[in-house]
């Protein structure tokens, strides 16, 4: 019975931070840009001077809980 355990036999090895960091900066920026376009572009702030992004993702913005208009 003593070999039945919930504890993993091999402890998972952490990924070194210096390996994560460049991806976190590059990926993080890209992901936040994506969320910005779905959540806030042409609402509170505007990069493009039209309302087409806002209108296109209108329903998703409401349902995802971002302040829409």
């Amino acid at each position, binding site marked *: 019975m003593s070999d039945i355990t919930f504890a993993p036999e091999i402890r998972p090895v952490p990924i070194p931070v210096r*390996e994560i960091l460049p*991806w976190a900066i590059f990926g993080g920026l*890209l992901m936040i840009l*994506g969320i910005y376009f779905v959540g806030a572009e042409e609402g*509170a702030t505007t990069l493009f001077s039209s309302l087409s992004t806002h209108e*296109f993702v209108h*329903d*998703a913005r409401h349902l*995802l809980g971002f302040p829409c208009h």
Partner: protein
Amino acid sequence: MVGNLLIRGMLVGILAGLFAFGFARVFGEPHIDSAIAYEEAMAEASGEAAEEEEELVSRETQAGAGLLTGSVVYGAAIGGLFSLVFAYVYGRVTSFGPRATAGLLAVAAFIAVVLVPALKYPATPPAVGNPETIGERTELFFVMLVVSVIAAVVAVALARRLWSQLGGWNAGIAGALAFIVIIAIAQYALPTVNEIPDGYSADLLWRFRTSSLGMHAVLWAVIGLAFGAVAERALPAGARARAA
């Protein structure tokens, strides 16, 4: 390896976005339609209906391709961020395998990213909210979101620090308590936003908001359950725990 995880996270996020779209389409869209009908009825009653607003994008597109695009882009972005946090947390904050780590991380993230901000600044259907305060409301929403995420990080760090002295159970309670105290102070201190028009259907508001939370729950559930299995294959054998 991290790049590989990031791509897998985004793919899982796209899948989760598709599920979230399906949920939102069935359970969320009817409430948006009701809210827009209410908005139009109100405009008509106040005599503004004469000038029909020019539609940039049709309702069909908004509820179809628009909702799909929004859900999938959001899903991919959340999945990508999730994978980056996973890469840091895995083997460092927990000693669980990839599947359990991803599952726990998704539950924690759902609480910190969705539930807590929504308690203070819940989703609003069309016809609720003054367009002139959109800047302020967006700011408050993101402030609440950032505070909530920081509180979650503090709570986890505290629980880990106390783990050896108090044991896992009590350290967990201490961490959760710290989270609740920080959130309580923030939600008490931040201004309340209430721009719901008089006579707005309370039932519609409730149903819209629960469907919004449901959409997020679907998204995070798919990410939490699928990412661990997908990440497992990207982690080198040495970094993998035998038990999931």
